[in-house]
């Protein structure tokens, strides 16, 4: 054994010992850098249309005649909106400002229809279809609107096709968005801090 080898041994043997200590210590003290999981808020994933809860909990359907048939007289058809009638209703439906365009003047449980018989609450889409024909056709085809249930319905109750008023408030039909979910979470270095540069035409 010559001197060179001995010199190397002085380096390698302590190095090995050091490595042993390092491996053992790192094995026991390893902590995952991943933070613990946070529960999801049920608002982010529970299926609901914008007015589903309102429709199911608040609106009492078909009881209008309790007041309207007994105590409230039939108003003058020329009046756009009778004074003091349902002041809580704020009407923002474009040109359609007259109450009796939609609500039947002789029977307030029903809606107006072309044949004069009136529509029941369950067929409210036909009422909207009197003006919004293209959307009504799309809704019949299934390209507009929300369906729940099964994608291949075999029985009549396999699929629920929501009527117009499940999403749109008939008095203020512009769609109102309710719950927005947060963006995905990343490591801090991936999070956007500056505004994204967008190329304008002609710059390139």
């Amino acid at each position, binding site marked *: *054994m010559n001197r060179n080898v001995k010199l190397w*041994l002085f380096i390698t043997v302590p190095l090995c010992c050091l490595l042993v200590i390092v491996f053992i210590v790192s094995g026991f003290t390893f902590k995952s850098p991943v933070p613990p999981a946070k529960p999801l808020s049920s608002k982010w*994933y529970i299926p609901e249309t914008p007015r589903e809860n309102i429709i199911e909990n608040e609106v009492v359907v078909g009881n209008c005649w309790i007041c309207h048939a007994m105590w409230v007289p039939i108003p003058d058809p020329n009046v756009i909106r009778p004074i003091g009638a349902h002041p809580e209703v704020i009407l923002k439906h474009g040109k359609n400002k007259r109450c009796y365009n939609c609500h039947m003047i002789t029977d307030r449980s029903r809606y107006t229809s072309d044949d004069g018989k009136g529509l029941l609450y369950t067929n409210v889409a036909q009422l909207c279809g009197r003006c919004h024909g293209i959307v009504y056709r799309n809704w019949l085809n299934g*390209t507009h609107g929300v369906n729940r249930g099964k994608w291949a319905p075999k029985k009549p109750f396999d699929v629920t096709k929501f009527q117009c008023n499940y999403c749109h408030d008939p008095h203020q039909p512009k769609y109102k968005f309710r719950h927005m979910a947060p*963006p995905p979470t990343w490591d801090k270095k991936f999070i956007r801090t500056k505004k994204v540069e967008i190329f304008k035409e002609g710059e390139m």
Partner: protein
Amino acid sequence: MGDNKNKLSRREFLTAAGIGAATCVASAAAISPLLKLTNKFSLEEFLQKNYRELTPEDKKRIFKRLEREISKKYGVKAKISDPPPLKGVKYAMVINVGRCIGCRKCVYACMKENNNSRSPQVQYIRVMRMEKGKIDLETAVHDYPESEAGQTDKYWYMPVQCHQCEDPPCVKVCPVSATWKEPDGIVVVDYNWCIGCRYCLAACPYYGRRFNWAEPQIPKNELNPDMAYLSNRPRYKGNAEKCTFCLQRTRNGRYTACVEACPTGARKFGNLLDAESEVRKIIDKERVFILKEELNTIPKMYYVFSKA
């Protein structure tokens, strides 16, 4: 002379023995983290075959073992099923980007349904936010804050997820055949067979695949106990995973979680081979756009620009 050469001196023997012992201990210490794996690793799992080679008895046994493992880890009694692909069905999805408001409800409904890891977060759907009047994916933003969602007068939104290609590049590159296309068009992954090489992540032009970089974490009370072997059972660390059109739901006739959660009805789902289905009616009648059509992967995800 010859005797002296072959003889080992006491000093030489001791040094050699010392080095030998040190290297033995060092290598043992180096592989000591493997000892921790014994709890997670069983011989049965090691010898498990590819899903497509399993007999019904094998499947029954494996599903039972997986159910046992899940109940041990999460304390939830889960049921792993294996719904077969329906005959005469090719699933397709249509997204009406004209009506998407970017609320990301589909993203979280998907996470909840498919038992995705909450931390680190794994999300199958990315919602891209783009300036109104431009179709430029380079400037699209997918981590826009909640306040920028729902502003349909300024922006438009395009959800992107696995496109369930008819000619999937991710399947072509898999070196171990851990991923394949089912007869109903859904591309699935056998999580136990996947080796985690991430070729499929690199091959996918839509970034439809996700990788579990760390041990997936799911809160116990949020685990969806209705599981299928190929789709939403809990994944392992080092697994590639992807959207499977919620096959545990769709093969039983239900809508996918994202379709059900969409508040505007922008997502439509159905059978591409059935002329009366929702998706076929839209594809026939509306202007349909296919993302990265030039790559010829023949995706079964269609985009429609329609307001009405």
